[in-house]
């Protein structure tokens, strides 16, 4: 295709060479090329993915999927996707041509599309509302400390949005992409690999949708936003002001509890409460996403629990009025609310509940009367939903029923348990409920109360109980003291991580320093063990110089630790900044969208690349250098699966708890296959063998000890400098030895010299290298090391043949091998490049 020729300094670029189809995006492409500058354009040919389709990022996706094996876990062998089916795929392909692997990959793509749809509709609702109120010209201003606004958008679309019109352009693009992905769900001609690429694309688009929502929250509704706060204040900002837990809500007052993804009714309810001076008379609390959003604009808000435990909040009798919007983990809120006599306001067009009527058009007085006479009502205008909640809450309190079972009632009901263990067999945490029932029958409620600590209140047990026992109510009734004492404090979400913090972090664990890396913990509750495990994971990592940030419901659970000695909650125990030993709360689940931009900042600081539609260039840098890991410890929701795929595509490894065995796809690297662990010397194009790292992109683990150890292992990056290499290797060795009583079978693969082994265990490890791996050690020095092909070589040869020379520019992307040195000329041997990935330099 003939394209416009753009001149950047002394270099001419034909837009048709840089963009697959430049028509309609010439202005964006030209801006990006000018920003890249002459020097970069001399070094390599630009490839821009402006308004990217999945296949526009194939260059990177192919590299990733050639290196990591996709392990599919869906056992479904029959396809019913179209009218030709069902087709049994266990022995041969379906009528449309789909094979079993592609069918399994489709299952993952389906989940990802559903998750993306939820986030897109949420973002669209907020954007439409913002445009309605402020118009499309409303400026996007994330503050003076956010230099690069909306980089999830810029990575896919090629520009930083300046106003709501720009945001709408980006969101419309993402909505159109969802339609394309949905088409692929039923198209039989694609390979499993193509479909996994599309699933990763859905992950990237999900970040974009979350980012739109998060930006509107910060720009339009004044949510806490670190971009507007002087960085010197970060260490204690936002203040420790948000109470967390079931015991923090004053149920002697009328209580409005917001659930679901949408904060808008809460925003208006709070506005009215403030206007009427009711702050001390009405309790405003939230569960799940809304629960984490409200404290970002209302200092008196309280967070009750995570979305997965919404049922617990209701059964414990906390709310008088529940305002609910669409939920990530839906359940029958109206039926649950009836049990305690609470009123339900279903907000929005998506919160459709069986038998709940939309009465938005009624005047407020009649609306109040209607809700007094009925259990629930649907209201689609946020101002009205918020006002109704405030108007009705005092009356609603009068109609509340006693929520908790007495000890005598629990004993009586326990007597009806026949120990069929249907409950045990559906319980995600394998809790032995029948044993607790037996004890309760005999008057001992202790075992039921023990179950409370690990119960996720999913109510599957009640659902299958042939005797219809209210098992959840019995567990709650046996745990009244625990509920009363469930009182902690946290910092509300702060939004983004600023460019300035990343400068510090870069010196802490990229360019030097003694921090092993940065961990983002996200998720929605429903943990394999107790809630307090999350706080233990945080403490372990922060105490070892990691920087940890939480986002989503997990933030409230991480808060559940109080240091008796220091008399501090976990959020005040550590600095609230992006520093080594820092611990930050980014916000509710849309705040997950701050994580990829934070990593892009790391790349910008190190490389100067601007994150605009140049996926391979940015992600190659962070994948090979930045020690970043995401931990998803709780529920394996569709959203979590989708963002995990998105993170993997962004070069960030993901560790997921035992729920993650349900993820439809794992992305695992084979450390034994040396052909997979190679990079290009960026100057000469020579292929270099490197350590197997990061060894996995998505891996489920079983215990928190496994999670910590795997995180430490995944900090390793092939281009890490010496001090960070030492820190990550020590973190791995320490965790493996402490938790499993032995060192791993692969730690030696990450050693390039004795200087990378922590001084406290250096001699021990050197002896092991000598004894178990045949290295030659003299005193505290390695004299000869064994290459992976078995050759014993002196250290000069070892360094020459294994790993990348410290600080040397290298890449996993063939195109990014420098084609022309500025001031000299070096051509890359393209034969080797072609051999490595089956992708030609051209």
């Amino acid at each position, binding site marked *: 295709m003939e394209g416009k020729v753009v001149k950047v300094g002394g270099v001419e670029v034909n837009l048709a060479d840089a963009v697959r189809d430049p028509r309609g995006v010439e202005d964006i492409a030209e801006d990006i090329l000018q920003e890249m500058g002459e020097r970069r354009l001399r070094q390599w040919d630009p490839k821009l993915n402006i308004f990217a389709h999945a296949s526009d990022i194939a260059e990177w996706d192919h590299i990733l999927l050639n290196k990591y*094996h996709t*392990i*599919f*876990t*869906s*056992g479904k062998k029959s396809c019913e996707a179209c009218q030709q089916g069902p087709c049994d795929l266990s022995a041969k392909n379906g009528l449309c041509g789909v094979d079993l692997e592609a069918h399994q990959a489709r299952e993952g793509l389906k989940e990802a599309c559903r998750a993306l749809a939820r986030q897109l509709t949420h973002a669209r609702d907020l954007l439409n509302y913002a445009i309605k109120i402020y118009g499309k010209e409303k400026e996007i201003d994330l503050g003076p400390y956010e230099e690069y606004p909306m980089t999830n958008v810029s990575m896919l679309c090629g520009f930083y949005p300046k106003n709501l019109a720009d945001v709408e352009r980006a969101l419309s693009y993402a909505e159109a992409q969802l339609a394309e992905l949905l088409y692929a769900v039923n198209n039989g001609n694609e390979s499993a690999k193509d479909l996994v690429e599309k699933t990763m694309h859905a992950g990237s688009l999900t970040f974009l949708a979350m980012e739109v929502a998060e930006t509107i929250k910060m720009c339009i509704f004044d949510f806490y936003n670190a971009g507007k706060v002087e960085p010197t204040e970060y260490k204690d900002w936002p203040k420790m002001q948000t109470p967390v837990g079931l015991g923090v809500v004053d149920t002697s007052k009328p209580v409005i509890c917001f659930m679901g993804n949408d904060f808008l009714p809460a925003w208006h309810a709070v506005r009215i409460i403030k206007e009427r001076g009711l702050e001390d008379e009405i309790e405003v609390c939230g569960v799940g996403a809304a629960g984490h959003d409200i404290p970002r604009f209302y200092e008196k808000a309280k967070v009750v629990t995570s979305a997965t435990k919404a049922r617990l909040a209701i059964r414990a009798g906390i709310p008088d009025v529940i305002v609910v919007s669409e939920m990530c983990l839906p359940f029958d809120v109206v039926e649950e609310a009836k049990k305690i006599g609470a009123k339900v306001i279903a907000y929005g067009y998506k919160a459709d509940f069986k038998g709940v009527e939309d009465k938005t058009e009624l005047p407020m007085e009649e609306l109040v009367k209607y809700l007094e006479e009925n259990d629930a009502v649907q209201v689609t205008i946020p101002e009205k939903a918020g006002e109704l909640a405030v108007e009705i809450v005092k009356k609603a309190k009068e109609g509340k029923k006693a929520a908790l079972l007495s000890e005598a009632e629990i004993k009586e009901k326990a007597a009806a348990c026949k*120990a*069929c*263990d249907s409950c*045990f*067999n559906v319980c*995600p*945490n*394998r809790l*032995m409920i*029948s*044993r607790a029932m037996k004890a309760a029958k005999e008057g001992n409620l202790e075992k039921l109360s023990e179950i409370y600590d690990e119960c996720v209140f999913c109510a599957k047990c009640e659902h299958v109980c042939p005797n219809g026992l209210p098992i959840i109510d019995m567990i709650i009734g046996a745990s009244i003291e625990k509920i009363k004492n469930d009182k902690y404090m946290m910092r509300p979400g702060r939004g983004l991580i600023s460019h300035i913090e990343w400068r510090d972090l870069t010196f802490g664990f990229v360019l030097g320093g003694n921090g092993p890396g940065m961990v983002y913990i996200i998720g929605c509750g429903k943990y*394999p063990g107790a809630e307090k495990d999350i706080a233990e994971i945080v403490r372990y990592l922060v105490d070892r110089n990691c920087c940890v940030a939480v986002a989503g419901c997990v933030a409230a659970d991480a808060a559940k630790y109080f240091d008796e000695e220091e008399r501090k909650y976990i959020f005040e125990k550590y600095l609230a900044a992006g520093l080594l030993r820092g611990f930050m709360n980014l916000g509710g689940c849309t705040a997950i969208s701050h994580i990829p931009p934070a990593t892009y900042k790391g790349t910008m600081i190190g490389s100067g690349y601007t994150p605009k539609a140049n996926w391979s260039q940015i992600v190659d840098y962070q994948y090979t250098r930045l020690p970043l890991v995401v931990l998803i410890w709780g529920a394996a929701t569709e959203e979590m699966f989708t963002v995990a795929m998105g993170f993997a595509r962004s070069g960030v490894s993901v560790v997921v708890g*035992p*729920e993650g*065995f*349900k993820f439809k796809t*794992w992305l*695992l690297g*084979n450390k*034994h*296959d040396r052909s997979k662990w190679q990079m290009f010397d960026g100057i000469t194009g020579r292929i270099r063998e490197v350590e197997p790292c990061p060894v996995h992109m998505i*891996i*489920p*683990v*079983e*215990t928190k*000890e*496994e999670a910590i150890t*795997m995180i430490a292992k995944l900090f390793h990056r092939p281009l890490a400098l010496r001090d960070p290499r030492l820190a990550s290797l020590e973190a791995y060795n320490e965790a*493996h030895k402490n*938790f*499993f*009583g*032995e060192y*791993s*079978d692969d730690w030696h693969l990450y050693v390039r010299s004795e200087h990378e082994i922590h001084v406290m265990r250096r001699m021990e490890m050197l002896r092991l290298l000598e004894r178990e791996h045949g290295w030659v050690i003299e005193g505290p020095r390695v004299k000869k090391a064994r290459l992976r092909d078995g050759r014993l070589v002196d250290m000069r040869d070892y360094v020459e043949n294994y790993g990348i020379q410290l600080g040397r520019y290298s890449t996993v992307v063939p195109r990014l091998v420098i084609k022309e040195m500025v001031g000299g000329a070096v051509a890359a041997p393209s034969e080797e490049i072609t051999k490595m990935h089956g992708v030609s330099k051209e």
Partner: protein
Amino acid sequence: MAAKEPLDIAKYLKERKGKVLVMSGWLCEKLELDGRRLIDYAVELANKLDAAVAATGNTVNAVRGKVKATKKMWAAEIPLYLKYDWKEPFERPEVVVLIGYTPDAARALATAMAGLVETVVLDSVEIPEATISLNTMTIDKWKESLEEIIRNLG
């Protein structure tokens, strides 16, 4: 149907003695069947089958020194190595026995190992994705079934 009676499972495993790998999952340490930990069943089973134990989760600490061979492994990696590179200190198995995994994890692992090895899941829940599993049953019956399998391995 994957579900089999304990006696049939014992017979099946006995015929494959020496070709079995036992995978012990995190629930092995958590669950006690009326006073006896699930990990003790895993160890006894491995010894009767002359099998090594791939100890996943934190179970290696409870298995070490009690079976002929064991190693700390990661459950999700096992299907990968079975498929591409088995370089463990014990022979590549023909049959993998899973014990101590949640039904969801067992389903996923059995699916991931399908076609690579035969899988036997000894949980109290039927796992159709496995080659063989126990029926869905009560905790008491599960304990009895495990004991019956072990007793009949000779």
